């Protein structure tokens, strides 16, 4: 039974590692300026923990193979070095790994959260509500009109609760159901939750941030490749959660200006 256990463990370990080593399941191509740091961190961690995983499983298999159901009267013996060796090994192996990952990982985190948005970035407000995202651009005046939750009226497409009759800034605000941004331009995303918690997740951007009701957070990113990418809600928000998505449309500067003109004329 010991030998059988060993064989199964080795098969499981190799079968588990194969799809990773063969790159069968990988993250999509990165289209952000900060994503490569996260990807690098991910592949470093994969190498280190893959090594730990395979090593531990193989040692387990070998010991069980070797030390199961030996002849009666076989004297048990102990690993030379004993517990001290194990403790030292754990501190050296994992301790350095912890330090390395911890320290290098900070850089990737800092690139997302600790850099100030550029002053000339494109400001877009995103509102998450059950079960849709809406995006608002400040329009030619560069200013967002204030929000009035009591004025929200989905039937009349007033998703944000704007009051153009009284607020001058709100009159030229552009509201869209997709997030159109120019390529290679920093976007400053102002996040607002209308009802419950939601999250903003774009796999290709390596970006995920929760919406917290009552707490307006912001994010900034630069997309580097034109195309259409899915924005998903990743925070359980109710029955339509699985269907809450929008598109990020990264376009050239000219296309973006054209798009914006069309939107303004629609308003």
């Amino acid at each position: 039974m010991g030998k059988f256990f060993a064989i199964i463990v080795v098969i499981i370990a190799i079968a588990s590692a194969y799809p990773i080593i063969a790159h069968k399941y990988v993250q999509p191509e990165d289209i952000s300026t900060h994503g490569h740091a996260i990807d690098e961190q991910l592949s470093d961690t994969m190498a280190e923990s893959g090594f730990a995983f395979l090593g531990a499983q193989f040692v387990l298999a070998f010991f069980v193979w070797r030390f199961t159901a030996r002849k009666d009267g076989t004297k048990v013996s102990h690993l030379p070095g004993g517990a001290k060796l194990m403790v030292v090994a754990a501190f050296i192996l994992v301790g350095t790994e912890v330090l390395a990952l911890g320290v290098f990982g900070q850089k990737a985190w800092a690139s997302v959260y600790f850099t100030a948005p550029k002053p000339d970035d494109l400001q877009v407000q995103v509102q998450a509500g059950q079960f849709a995202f809406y995006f608002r651009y400040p329009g030619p005046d560069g200013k967002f009109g204030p929000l009035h939750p009591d004025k929200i009226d989905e039937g009349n497409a007033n998703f944000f609760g704007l009051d153009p009759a009284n607020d001058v800034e709100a009159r030229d605000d552009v509201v869209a159901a997709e997030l159109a941004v120019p390529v290679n331009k920093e976007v400053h995303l102002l996040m607002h939750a209308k009802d419950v918690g939601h999250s903003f997740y774009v796999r290709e951007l390596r970006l995920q941030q929760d919406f917290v009701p009552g707490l307006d957070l912001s994010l900034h990113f630069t997309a580097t490749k034109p195309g259409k990418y899915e924005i998903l809600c990743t925070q359980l928000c109710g029955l339509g959660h699985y269907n809450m998505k929008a598109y990020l449309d990264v376009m050239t500067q000219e296309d973006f200006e054209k798009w914006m003109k069309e939107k303004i004329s629609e308003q």
Partner: protein
Amino acid sequence: MQEASPAQVHAPPTSFLRKHVFSLDHKVIGLQYYGLALAAVTLGMVLSWLMRFHLVWPTVAVPGLSLISKVGAPGGIITPEYYLSLLTMHGTLMVFFVLTNAPFAAFGNFFLPIQIGAEDMAFPRFNMMSFWTTLAAFLVLITAFFIPDGPPISGWTAYAPLSAIGSDAGPGLGWGQTLWAISIALFCAGSLLGALNFISTTLDLRAKGMTLMRMPICTWAWFITSCIALLAFAVLLPACLLLILDRTAGTSFFIPSGLVVSDRLQPHAGGSPLLWQHLFWFFGHPEVYIAILPSMGIVSHVLMASMRKPLLSAKVIIYSMLSIGFLSWMVWGHHMFVSGMNPFSSLVFSFPTLTITIPATIMTLIWLGSLYGANIRMTSASLFSLGFISMFVSGGVSGFFLAQPSIDIYLHATYFVVGHFHMVMGVASIFGVFAGTYFWFGKMTGRMLNETLGKVHFWITFIGTYCIFMPFHYLGLVGNIRRYSTFVDDFMGPLMPLHKFITIAALITGAGQLIFLFNLFHSRFWGKPAPQNPWDGTSLEWSIPSPPPWNNFGDVHPVVYHDSYQYGVKGSKGDYVMQDSPEQVVGG
């Protein structure tokens, strides 16, 4: 006026009710907890079957399901909101009523007093109340299935404000969510009483000669776990009370102003959704260790009897468990890396999270290193213990990814997380429960489990759980989001074959558990009578008959002369010396 001390020694129960239902006997209470966990795990597993089934065959009707919920599954087809109900109930049942009850409350109640040589728990009445409160919590939770609105849909984490607003936010968030909050509050109260008992019993009712360091490792694990539980549930209980007030009394602890839900401006102001997350995860992360520490203890205990030698160092294992228990209080923020907390705190929480892998690695290396030079007896209990090590490693390494906030930006809320915690706290912990069951069933019931069935059960479960949960990691790497009832998104289409594979594996592995259930019920009545010490163990539970008499040690008080690791030494009975044997130990 006479003076006396409390009658900790209770009289033998005579009536049927006192013996089997409202029993003060820690052994009966342990069995009751085990039964409750068994009911909960069966239900929880069926729910996971339904979820897996729905994910890959969303249009195929599940026969009979419409009888249980006409609204949730019209014609047997699960609606998106019913999927979320299933998910919420599955998580709640498994985390609270299975992973807390089975390894900790069930085995702990049965064996902790015996292993320290006590006649019963310190407060038998509290102990009984603890079980009945937990049972009430279970029944309240289950009631949610049968109310018109259905069970809650906010996940086992019940993030506010979704969980706090009420039925405006969706079906199940009316009475269903209130029942959930009441159930968890009751569960907290029951667990607090249990933890109180465990701690006092361990501190004060140890037999003569049973020093703290002579206690078996699993006793230590239960003791440390009860210290963690005492603090964790003492925080979750207030959180649940505040949630209940927000839901029913119109307060605004967790609900901010200006929320428009279902076109209705909510009459709340100023609350903080992050407050719920902080309180919840301050409990929630230690809860992970409440689930896994007892299994670590059980596995260490079983392994020594299987290997016929002590672990390289029991002390190091105990100190590692203590440091895990200590560190578990500083890491709750790693559940909230992308939740809108100050980004600086994410880095602060990341370090203790990574550091906690050091004691976990030490324990793994001690288990592995101890196998060297052993003479392993391959029983079902041994297999599950070895399987535990394999599973703990597999689930543990993925923790490296999630402990780093930068990687968590990408992997948060994906199946990678689901794979990680299912393996490391779910499956690993359950493997500990299985090991304990095969090891102790004879002691608990007086009948041995069938070993052949046990081994078949192991192979199906071991290979099956790997087939289910390893692919979860692959899905997560691609960015597959959790808690989605249907994969409508473009990139998830190509992942469907993998999802089908997982579902089929889950159905087979789940069916394999029927072997275990059959074994339990069949052996309970027709199994081989259990000898006093079937596995040549050394700890006190093996010094008394199977099953033990109502007062454990009969009329005698055991005296302990050794620690419980006297394996591989020369004793008069074989290669081991019992803890209560006055024999002197001759070098091995």
